[in-house]
């Protein structure tokens, strides 16, 4: 059966290739740092389940030590010259989009199709499995039609990976911090603080505290999923649902979306906000967050109003 393990093997291979290309590149003064960093990511993908919790923790400490103390560098830019790319773009034309769209198309088809074959595929992971298959299919077509040099995808992929750098591991790191917070009971303490801040006997006050609390706590945690159980326990359940008899479906569904407004406004949601800034090579790493604030704040107000007007009819 094809499970996520296979995809981890593939991802580990990609990271290992990024590490080897760095190791061989003398134009990068810190090539050993880069090679060690992506090499450790490869080990995590390949062998994470055999390292044990403490072993994985040490692996993370090593990643942080390499990246946190300036161990990562960049190779001399080996980007393809603009003129070559223009010439190739003219030669291959819109077929290039065809290859680019293989990945989403395979992810789409696989998500719908593979569920019908529960003996062949792990049905809970069909999207990630079909994403990986789309990557392999796109590479195959690329080799066959573009006649790309065998190492070109990996060497160019390495260049993109190094331009993202340690930010690539931030989402995983923040998810792990969330787990430590949960273990330490941070959520319960925050919930207690918020409960004391609500004015007594005011439905509007409670709704506003719930919506704002979802957004703010999501901004701190970088993830609405972490904020949701805390805010439901502190305000949603005791006040909005029990005391004011609100509709639980509306309070939960729209409350979660109020949290998503917080996700738009925080660097802690690294995969959505910091990673694209690195991928698009923006000068200001917070440019995406800043752009989103003016959408997030009015939308948060709308969400709070929707809860107030829809849930208590």
């Amino acid at each position, binding site marked *: 059966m094809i499970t996520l393990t296979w995809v981890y093997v593939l991802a580990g291979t990609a990271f290992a290739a990024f590490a080897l290309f760095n190791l061989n590149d003398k134009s990068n003064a810190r090539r050993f740092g880069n090679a060690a960093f992506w090499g450790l990511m490869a080990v995590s993908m390949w062998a994470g389940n055999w390292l044990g919790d403490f072993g994985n923790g040490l692996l993370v400490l090593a990643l942080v030590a390499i990246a946190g103390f300036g161990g990562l560098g960049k190779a001399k830019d080996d980007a393809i010259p603009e003129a070559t790319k223009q010439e190739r773009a003219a030669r291959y034309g819109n077929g290039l989009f065809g290859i680019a769209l293989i990945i989403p198309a395979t992810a789409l088809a696989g998500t719908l199709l593979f569920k019908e074959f529960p003996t062949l595929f792990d049905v809970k992971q069909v999207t990630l499995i079909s994403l990986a298959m789309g990557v392999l299919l796109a590479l195959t077509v690329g080799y066959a039609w573009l006649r790309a040099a065998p190492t070109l995808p990996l060497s160019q992929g390495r260049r993109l990976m190094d331009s993202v750098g340690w930010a690539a591991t931030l*989402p995983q790191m923040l998810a792990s911090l969330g787990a430590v917070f949960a273990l330490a009971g941070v959520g319960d303490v925050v919930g207690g603080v918020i409960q004391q801040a609500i004015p007594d006997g005011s439905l509007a006050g409670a709704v506003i505290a719930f919506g704002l609390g979802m957004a703010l706590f999501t901004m701190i945690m970088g993830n609405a999923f972490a904020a949701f159980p805390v805010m439901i326990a502190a305000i949603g359940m005791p006040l909005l649902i029990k005391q004011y008899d609100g509709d639980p479906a509306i309070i939960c569904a729209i409350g979660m979306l109020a949290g998503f407004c917080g996700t738009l406004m925080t660097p802690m949601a690294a995969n959505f906000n910091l990673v694209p800034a690195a991928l698009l090579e923006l000068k200001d790493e917070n440019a995406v967050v800043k752009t989103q604030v003016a959408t997030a704040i009015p939308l948060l107000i709308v969400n709070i109003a929707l809860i107030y007007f829809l849930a208590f009819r």
Partner: protein
Amino acid sequence: MWVLLGIVVIVVGFMLRFNPLLVIMASAAVTGIAAGFDLHAIISAFGKAFNDARYVSIVWIVLPVIGMLEAFGLQERARGLISSLKGATIGRLLAGYLLLRQATAALGLTSIAGHPQTVRPLVAPMAEAAAEKQAGTLTDEEREEVKAYSAATDNVGLFFGEDIFLAIGSILLMKGLLEQYGIILEPFELSIWAIPTAIAAFIIHGFRLWRLDRRLARKTAAAAHSGDSA
């Protein structure tokens, strides 16, 4: 109360622009110690969660494909296509992408698009080309703004589309949590209430895209005007 020190570390660390990985580690250590765990337990908890969250980093396997296609001129082709289309403006392009992203996410197809898969190779270069066509030339700040809007539009489309789908993680989380309180709801009863916000998100973000569109278009008009009078 002492466990909240970890949050203080995060906020201050990010504000003072220390390396975020170091800030995260410091926060985990402070939080764990404040809660009375020893170092071994903190490192183990962190390592376990890191291993469980590996699926987040799978998406980087698309980089070799993107790198290969970019070497063959994908971004240049994306720009060329938009420049040749009459009536392609940045506002229409990004609003169209917003709608497409919301609609596909609402069908549960959240991973078919994203920053590495679609924004960097396709959406951002197309948006840049459309903006260039509208404004004549772009300043560096405007180029950054157009790229940032491309990424932001992907996020808004994803966040305020995905909860309409029945089987998405957040809907299942809500259902599970409510069950703990003895409230049994079908996923459909929850996901339907994501629709009003989805519409509001399209209107609010779409309005901002329209204003960006107008601002860039006015720049050409102003440039043409000053050219006439000179």
